[in-house]
């Protein structure tokens, strides 16, 4: 098995981004079919397909849809296109190359769950993809795929684009909802969960770009056809964003269950000449880091990553070779979570800043003997103690880095320099 073109089959064709081009390759045919299906049949099909959320949490999509209460209240479908987990850039590709695939997937999904209003929440920095989406939405509206009585089915759907303004936390589904409601993007207390009380306190489903786009293929091929790829518990294909120390970074679609080292060595062209693998973050910066040894037999699926104590997350694979200083890398990660903590829950607000200061101190030769254990204590005491998972996301890399590469941290604290010979430690010029 190798790279497949299942979701990305036509991504190399520039016209695929237009309505005309999309239709040339079968676009919106699945919508027409879906609108003739029983809603429950679509939900059942999505459940049977084993599709799991591609944004990070990996929650079964059909099950999530099933949480909507039958209370007659209006429902909303929100597409999470915030793509803010460091290392992740696959949704951007999907929106740039195949905006109609996402729109078609959204219309089908909205029909299935009975939503008449849907939004794509796109991060503010993605001005390029946003323009492409706006154009595509306009085309779809003009062609009657969005609006009243879609394709004569009697189903109405309004679909619109909402742009963010720079905040990682808006990728968290309730943070996204807060942002869409016009406030700071601070996550909301759960319960109630969004499926029960989400956008405007109405039942709301939030799904990732790739998840919604996958629905088109599930309708086309059926659950069984979709399951042609992947493993029992990790069905289908997934787009992986690979960055860091590989020859050919980029987005690659492979079946779930694919070997991590194959992705690195085959699709990505391997490491840079003369370098050895040191570590891989397999699912975005919040996923616990894997050592080279752990990577050896790792497969890219939810089960294997869980067994290894990490996460498949958003499928953002960040590769680090033996030239990298893990202390320096952790300092950028702790800086990120400190910068992005929304600030409402005390443990996260205070803990992320504290952890950054400690790691920063180590990198600047001011480390203290107890720092490693203190980092572990802080991380363990913010994890699971807050409204959303940002604290966990900040804690996991800290715990995994200082545990798996403890020697590098100890060395840095003691010697006030990196253990990695010849590595470049960033010394800021302007602070």
């Amino acid at each position, binding site marked *: 098995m190798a790279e497949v073109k299942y979701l990305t089959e036509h991504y190399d064709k520039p016209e695929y981004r237009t309505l005309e081009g999309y239709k040339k390759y079968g676009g919106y045919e699945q919508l027409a079919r879906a609108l003739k299906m029983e809603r429950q049949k679509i939900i059942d099909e999505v459940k049977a397909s084993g599709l799991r959320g591609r944004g990070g949490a990996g929650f079964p999509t059909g099950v999530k849809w099933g949480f909507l209460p039958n209370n007659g209240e209006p429902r909303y479908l929100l597409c999470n296109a915030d793509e803010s987990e460091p290392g992740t850039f696959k949704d951007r590709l999907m929106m740039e190359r195949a905006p109609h695939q996402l729109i078609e997937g959204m219309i089908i999904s909205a029909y299935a769950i009975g939503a008449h209003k849907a939004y794509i929440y796109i991060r503010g920095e993605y001005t390029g993809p946003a323009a492409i989406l706006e154009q595509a939405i306009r085309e779809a509206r003009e062609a009657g795929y969005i609006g009243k009585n879609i394709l004569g089915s009697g189903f109405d759907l309004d679909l619109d684009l909402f742009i963010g303004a720079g905040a990682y936390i808006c990728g968290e589904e309730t943070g996204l909802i807060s942002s869409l409601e016009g406030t700071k993007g601070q996550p909301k207390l759960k319960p109630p969960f969004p499926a029960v009380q989400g956008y405007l306190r109405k039942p709301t489903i939030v799904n990732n770009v790739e998840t919604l786009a996958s629905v088109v293929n599930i309708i086309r091929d059926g659950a069984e056809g979709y399951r042609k790829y992947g493993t029992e518990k990790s069905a289908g294909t997934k787009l992986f964003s690979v960055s860091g120390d590989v020859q050919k970074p980029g987005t690659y679609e492979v079946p779930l269950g694919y070997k991590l080292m194959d992705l690195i060595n085959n699709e990505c062209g391997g490491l840079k000449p003369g370098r050895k693998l040191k570590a891989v973050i397999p699912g975005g910066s919040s996923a616990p880091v894997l050592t080279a040894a752990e990577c050896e037999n790792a497969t890219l699926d939810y089960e294997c990553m869980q067994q290894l104590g990490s996460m498949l997350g958003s499928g953002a694979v960040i590769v680090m070779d033996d030239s990298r200083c893990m202390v320096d890398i952790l300092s950028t990660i702790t800086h990120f979570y400190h910068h992005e903590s929304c600030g409402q829950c005390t*443990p996260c607000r205070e803990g992320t800043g504290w952890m950054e200061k400690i790691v920063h101190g180590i990198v600047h030769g001011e480390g203290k003997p107890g720092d490693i254990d203190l980092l572990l204590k802080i991380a363990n005491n913010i994890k*699971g103690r807050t409204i959303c998972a940002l604290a966990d996301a900040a804690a996991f890399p800290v715990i995994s880095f200082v545990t798996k590469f403890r020697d590098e941290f100890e060395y840095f604290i003691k010697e006030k320099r990196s253990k990695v010979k010849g590595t470049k430690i960033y010394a800021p010029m302007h602070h």
Partner: protein
Amino acid sequence: MLQCTINGKELEVKPGTTIIEAMKLIAHEDIAHYCWHPGLPVAGVCRLCVVEIEGNPRLQIACNTQITDGMKITNQSEKVKEAVKWGLDFHLINHPLDCPICDQAGECELQNQYMKFGKYDSEMAEPKVKKHKVVDLGPRVVLDSERCILCSRCVRFTDEVTKTHELGIFNRGDRSEIGTFNGRPLDNKYSLNTVDICPVGALTSKDFRFRQRVWFLKEHQTICTGCSTGCNVKVSYNKEGLFRVKPVYNEQVNGYWMCDEGRDVYKYVNKPARLLDAWMTTAGRGEWLHPLTAAKKVGEFLRAPENKGKSVALVLTGQHTLEEYEALISFFKNEVGTDRIFHWVNNPESMNDFDGLLIRGDKNPNTKGLLETLERHGIKTEWKELIDGLSTGAIRTVVVAGPENQAVYPDFKAKVLELSKAQKLVWLTACKNEELERLQGDVTLIPLKTYIEKDGTFVNYAGLRQTVKKGLTVVANAMSLVEVAEAFKGVDVRPEEAPFKVGVGRVNNEATLQRGSL
């Protein structure tokens, strides 16, 4: 009803009850918390009220978890204790250690809860986050952002209670700070409630800042006399007098809040504002007298056959207690033989105003009580009759039970002028007043006790009877109107001798709920 167990105690609670409500209000268990306040929507951000629920591996916050039947809850497990310790430490790592100069010291929830639940050995060696200090937030409130723990209570208060939206939390992460937009003042009629609900010393009252250490103050529960709402309050005082007023929860009257104006009411109680002895002028010569002596002299005069009868008028305001009205009205009707008893209405045009929250246009605590008493005695008079009587000479003697709180009597000066036409004017008053001191002719001033110094009943706008108890004595020689009425009859009522007496007072009515510190 639902059954549950909290720290081993079996409880029955109503469906919808949250764990923190059950713990604090029903089981009376200690639970650390900052952001939760029973009068505000749940924020769930301080993360301190964590509890362990049997069968749930993850700690839950008590403020956002409703009790389900059979739930077994504890906050005494090692897991919870450890989480609370760290939770407190996270609150403290960037908090300044300026307790020695912080007004909140002694009633600071950060201090209190750390003493109870804290980690004690902070491991924070990194530099603290710097934020704004001594921010002049508005006419009554000062902010110290470094002390702020971002519980958001004050923001929720201006968003949800006053709906004035002055406050916000700006920026994000540990750079977050509360504040107002572009220095716009926090200026609403309830702004000091933000100081009350601030669990730390981030928001302090300009009026109270640096004036007293709270551990040198005692508290006395009473009723605010600032308007006819009758908010339940407590005053903080020591031998120097009163220092501040804070609201006390009463679901039926004021909930958790009170207005800023009501906070100023205490000021006239303190000695500098008060009339300390009686002043009597006869034949152009004035002298200071013991109030009892003066009152007895006035009484003799009023009861004398040549003076008594309908030439005597009594003027009452809505500022005294039911018991006082009864005593004085009975004396004038029965012993003096006059029914010329008049109600001085201070602000007739705004009497029925209401701001929708607590503030009423009737700036008297007991207008309703006065009206009830007058009606019961069958007294119906118009102010015009008094003025006419004074100009025709039909009314020669006027006794006035003047307002305690002169600040809410915009017509005070005008009324003094009008009434000074009487041949003999007796003015019963708690506070000094230039207009009164300037009066010529046969004038007697007798010092009255304020609401803090006597027992009695007020009837609020809705007809709710609320009793006040004597808390302390500020002016030793001052008399209540009940005592004045007795002295008028010639009875030797002895006013207080000691200048400072500490009493334990408490407001009693069915709706008063003691909820402890919130």
